[in-house]
């Protein structure tokens, strides 16, 4: 769906799988460039969702980043070794790091 126009220079881990990334790009972009569109399962119906606005407004790109839940993937700048994974359902405050 998307094609990179610039070379990658680091690696992030999505659900344990290594993905090529470029430092400073958003995690949402890294995932989309890798062909990943299923970022989360909604809290209400469990539907699969991915980014809509890519500018911090829609909250549809929620993922887990370094153990923190409900993080907007479009608002996180990637760095080498970043670990992230899908957001399944609602966040449980008891799981906060």
């Amino acid at each position, binding site marked *: 769906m998307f094609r990179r126009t610039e070379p990658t220079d680091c690696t992030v881990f999505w659900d344990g799988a290594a993905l090529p990334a470029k430092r400073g790009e958003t995690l949402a972009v890294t995932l989309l460039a890798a062909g990943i569109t299923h970022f989360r399962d909604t*809290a*209400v119906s469990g539907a699969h969702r991915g980014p809509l606005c890519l500018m911090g407004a829609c*909250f549809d790109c929620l993922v887990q980043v370094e153990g923190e839940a*409900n993080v907007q993937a479009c608002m996180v700048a990637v760095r080498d070794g970043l670990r992230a994974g899908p957001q399944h*359902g*609602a*966040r*449980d*405050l*008891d799981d*906060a790091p």
Partner: protein
Amino acid sequence: MLSMMMQPSDRYDIAVLGGGMLGSAIAFGCAAGGARVAVLDEGDVALRAARGNFGLVWSQGKGDGMPAYAAWTRRSLAAWGDLSDRVSGLAGRDVGYRAAGGLVFCLGEAELSARREQVQRLHNQGHEGVRILDRRALLDLMPGCPLGPEVVGASYQPADGHADPLTLLRGFKAGLLAAGAAMLNGAAITRITAEGQGFCIERADGGTFRAGRIVIAAGLGTPELAAQVGLAVPVRPVRGQNIVTERLAPILPLPASAIRQTTDGTVQIGVTTEDDGSYDPITRTENLATMAARAIRVLPALARANVVRSWGALRPMTPDGFPAYAESTTHPGAFVAVCHSAVTLAAVHAGPLAAGILAGRLPDELAPLHPRRFEGMLAHVPAH
């Protein structure tokens, strides 16, 4: 007469002026009763009271000094279950009505004793069923709820509950469309004139509409329109600010005054009562911070929750804070309704109020809520 020259399609049985929560409920009830209904709404530039609605379907604490309002509220709660089934079917989704009881949390002994006194006073006015729970009883009611240590108790009304206001409004609109009602949105009403056995309504966009009866349900726009049919209905804006969090796993099983978790998981935190005369539905950081701080004292885990949105809205408030309903004596067939709890009262607005308008006679139980009570009322009591 002009009315005799009109085609049937030009004239509605009932025109409801205002398509918010109040007007939609009344129009829905009238359309369900077989009337040919038009809803004339200004559009989304209107200062909609429902934007500030907290979604509570609520009786406790309401009607102190006005038993007719308390009784009207209780009647709505009794009919809300049936309304919920109808509206959920029409909306195509669950309106989220849960009536497992509602709470007012008390932080510290001083709040609890003040609440106990208020409950006792209302009990003496016929409010039955509200009781004070201590912390242990509260935790028995909500096992595992992570209440903060300052929560020493709460008042509890088993008949209270909450619902999703947006789905309620969607259900009303779907019901109106299914009944063939005309939804005429997009311009403010400029003039109402009596004409034959009915009314002519003119709008800022040049539109002209005719109806046998009219219902003014225009929130903060009510005084100006009501004056045109000979009714004095003073209404002022009282601002309320709201916060919602991200969707969270279940943390609060029962709705409470100023804090509830929706069926979708967001926690809604309210709410200010700002009586400064301003028509600006703003938020202020200092107010939002105060609201959030209290919510965190109730549920300390919320300190880790993210806020998704905050907003302000304006409640239409009468001088004594209670709703007003009337039919004009100078313009028979012209009705007015105004309130700030149109979700709680939705079932009576769609039910007995709409039936009364169709019958041309408001329910007798609403006589104490006639706006003539405001005559000579110089000051107003604090909003509640």
